[in-house]
């Protein structure tokens, strides 16, 4: 895999006006040598104390400049016969050099003196790349392949993440950003989850995937034909290109308006994979009613008061609520409604009750996709029931692709609340159920649920996401989230995400403050990333690196049709 090269590619260059520092250095590149941003290079440096051998300062190439001795563009114009000559090569090409700028990653002997002028610079081989990034310090059993680093000279190295910094306890959560349409964010999340699962010998991870687009994640147990090159990449990463084992994937598809008669769930998957249908009846939903109104402004808190009364009334099986068994009951019967007229309830003004009922009717009646049912049948299940029984080594795919936005929020919130409850709730004395040590929850379009400050009111779903982002790691609940724009997500969520992955990004977006952790030059490269290329920032790495990863070994639903 590694191609070692002992040929120097250039030499350190420090000038009066452009000195090398402990953080950055420059080197000129030998003519004919190809170097690209994100290449990792090694510059010879002072030997360690008591050692006769040179140490190496490793750098990540962030930019490359071409300089010439032309004093200005006018000099080049005049050199071409005052602009008349546009074809012929110059008699003597102008003196010029390619000069690369590198951000210091580390030094093999912990020497952080600036790289000296004339120091020989080489491409780093795989061992040196690992040394440069700090991967050498990750114990073998904690190494999780996260992609391939490919350098201009053909050298390849596996980028490993430290499991303890992805799944805790040291750090946790993964956030993936990038414009849509390149099928990269979801594919990468799935690749990384597969990598974590395959490098989990103790089988202590459970995975919950929310399918938000078409049937993208509803075929993950079905194999896809891989090319030889793709096989090779999986092999290089030390991973098996296998789909999810079908006995370990559980698909939860939503109930639709016609599911009760046709048996078909409300899903893009056609035919649907082996699955269970989930739905929401009032009695099973009462404790999550607040999630249904996450997007509704409630500055006075009256809506919250009504919801609180209902949640405690139904949850506590209070006398006034015993007759309220279905959504229709809630909308048309006492205690909230009498003869079609909203009633005052526990000092809540009838007009507030009326507003609540209008909003609820719109969600569970007018706009509903079929997920809200009067009563659960035997063929139906609930998210709480399924997720409340998750097992290590198993993956649960919750399809929300065809749901209305309020319904999606309810389901996602339900998943988070259920998982959180598994760990934070009190264990029942008669129950010997052991929740998995780690639960990974993957959701795309996180900005819907945890929008950036100023883009939405504080809401129950946001609080739920913040709970997971800030405290989930200590329980072993890990959020794998994706969105188009990092800046659109709440900074307490992105700030708690230790591993950040960036795909191709809009040029306007990269100037947002959320990208300040990247060097300006690296930021500019975000606009040029190809499909399958990502920038990976991990707490162990001293600088973000560019990686490639193989395409998934499972069918990606509609994309494969």
């Amino acid at each position, binding site marked *: 895999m590694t191609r070692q090269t002992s040929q120097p590619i250039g030499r350190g260059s420090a000038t009066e006006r452009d000195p090398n520092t402990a953080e950055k250095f420059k080197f000129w590149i030998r*003519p004919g040598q190809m170097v690209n941003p994100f290449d990792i290079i090694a510059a010879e440096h002072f030997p360690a104390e008591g050692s006769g051998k040179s140490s190496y300062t490793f750098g990540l190439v962030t930019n490359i400049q071409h300089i010439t001795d032309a004093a200005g563009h006018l000099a080049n114009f005049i050199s071409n016969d*005052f602009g008349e000559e546009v074809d012929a090569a110059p008699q003597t*090409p*102008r003196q010029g050099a390619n000069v690369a700028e590198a951000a210091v990653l580390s030094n093999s002997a912990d020497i952080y003196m600036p790289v000296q002028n004339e120091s020989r610079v080489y491409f780093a081989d795989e061992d040196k790349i690992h040394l440069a990034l700090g991967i050498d310090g990750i114990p073998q059993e904690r190494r999780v392949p996260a992609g391939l680093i490919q350098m201009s000279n053909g050298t390849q190295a596996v980028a490993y993440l430290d499991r303890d910094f992805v799944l805790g306890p040291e750090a946790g959560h993964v956030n993936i950003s990038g414009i849509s349409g390149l099928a990269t964010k979801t594919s990468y999340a799935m690749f990384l989850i597969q990598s974590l699962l395959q490098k989990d010998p103790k089988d202590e991870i459970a995975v919950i995937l929310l399918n938000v687009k078409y049937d993208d994640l509803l075929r993950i147990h079905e194999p896809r034909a891989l090319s030889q090159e793709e096989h090779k990449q999986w092999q290089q990463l030390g991973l098996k290109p296998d789909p999810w084992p079908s006995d370990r994937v559980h698909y939860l598809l939503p109930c639709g308006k016609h599911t009760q008669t046709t048996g078909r769930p409300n899903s893009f998957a056609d035919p649907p994979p082996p699955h269970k249908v989930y739905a929401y009846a009032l009695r099973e939903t009462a404790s999550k009613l607040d999630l249904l109104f996450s997007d509704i402004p409630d500055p006075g808190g009256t809506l919250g008061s009504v919801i609180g009364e209902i949640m405690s009334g139904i949850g506590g099986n209070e006398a006034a609520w015993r007759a309220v068994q279905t959504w229709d009951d809630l909308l048309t019967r006492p205690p909230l409604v009498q003869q079609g007229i909203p009633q005052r309830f526990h000092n809540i003004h009838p007009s507030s009750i009326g507003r609540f009922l209008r909003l609820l009717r719109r969600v569970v009646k007018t706009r509903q996709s079929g997920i809200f049912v009067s009563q659960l049948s035997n063929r139906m299940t609930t998210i709480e029931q399924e997720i409340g029984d998750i097992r290590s080594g198993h993956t649960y795919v919750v399809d929300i692709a065809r749901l209305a936005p309020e319904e999606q929020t309810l389901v996602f919130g339900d998943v988070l609340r259920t998982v959180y409850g598994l760990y934070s709730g009190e264990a029942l004395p008669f129950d010997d159920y052991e929740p998995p040590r780690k639960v990974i929850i993957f959701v795309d379009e996180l900005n819907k649920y945890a929008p950036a400050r100023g883009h939405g009111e504080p809401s129950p779903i946001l609080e739920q996401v913040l709970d997971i982002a800030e405290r989930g790691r200590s329980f072993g609940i890990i959020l794998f989230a994706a969105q188009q724009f990092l800046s659109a997500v709440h900074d307490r969520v992105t700030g708690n995400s230790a591993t950040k992955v960036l795909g191709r990004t809009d040029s306007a977006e990269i100037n947002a403050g959320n990208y300040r952790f990247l060097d300006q030059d690296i930021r500019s490269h975000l606009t040029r990333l190809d499909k399958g290329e990502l920038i990976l920032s991990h707490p162990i790495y001293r600088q973000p690196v560019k990686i490639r990863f193989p395409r998934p070994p499972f069918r990606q639903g509609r994309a494969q049709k």
Partner: protein
Amino acid sequence: MPNPFQPLQSALRALVENAQVLPATGQAVVDMVTPDLEEIYDQRTTGEATVQTVWETDARSRYRSIQPIHRSEEHGFRYFIDGSARTYFIGTVLEQDRSTPVQVSQVGAAMVRREDDGRICLADSRRTILLTLEKSQVSESLWQALEQALAGVADYTLCDSATNNRYAEAMQLQESRPRGAHRANWHMRELETELAQSLSRTHKEWLVVDGSLGNEFETWRGAPIIGVAKTFRRDSRFELGTGPRARKLNLFGLLKDLQENQRTLVFPRNNEGKIVFWYVRLRPQKGLDYPLMGVVKVEMPNPDREPVDSQLVDRISGWLLAERSVTPYGRDGRWHAHLYPIYIAEQVIRSRFYSEEVLKSGIRWPFQVATRGMDT
């Protein structure tokens, strides 16, 4: 980095121990040579200003039109030489009632080669540091002490500003300090000549030397060489032809009608023809300030003194015209007549000189010794 001028310290110590020293105010001071130096050298070393004959096989027209010949068609010029000298005054030595300036010069010459693809690489170079005094103004014992201090030190040379100084002699300079600077220039010229003569090359590989060719090339029979001067004597006069159609022109008159892509007739230096010269206009007058700009003077050894083949001169001039791409415009005031490979050779040698900061810090008089000497 160790002090590169450390080898000089023992010589300076010899000076302060054997004579009184008045250091230069504010450490070393650059000693400039006369402005328009090349022009004056050309004037003083190339003999007669008046040219009375033409020295080529086809002399029908005063100007001949030339087409640029790119290296892809015929790659004539392969090697280029340039030199540089920088002189610093570091003090005055007093002995009895005699005195002499003490100067340190960095002198070098570089030769570059142009490959088929146009890339330039270094072919060879020379570099010397001169410690210059006027030998006649110091005692024999002091001079011997200096010789002893620098004996066996590579790249350092003790130099008498009064001897082997053709430039100063040509200019009839009497003052010591300018003589020292010109001595360094002459040494540079010697290094250039040494480089030119040391290189083994074929007869297809032409060498271009920056500036006028010295008289030492009058008998040159080696591989082909030309000198290309950016600035040259302006007192030249041309008395061409005889009879009623004879024309007398000064240099301005000759060059004002020289158009882009043209050369003049070939003329003999000093009316002898051992070295011949002609002018080529590299750049159009329209883009320049006055007629002499954009013109180079080309000199070529002609030891047989036969009229030069006009076709050959056309080819050489065509190669030269192709050299106008690229130009060091903005980097050098003489860009309009500068050949870029020559400019590179100059940069090569200058980049090897120690900076003024290094020189000022590295050369220090051992004062305490001097004070003790004066007290006693």
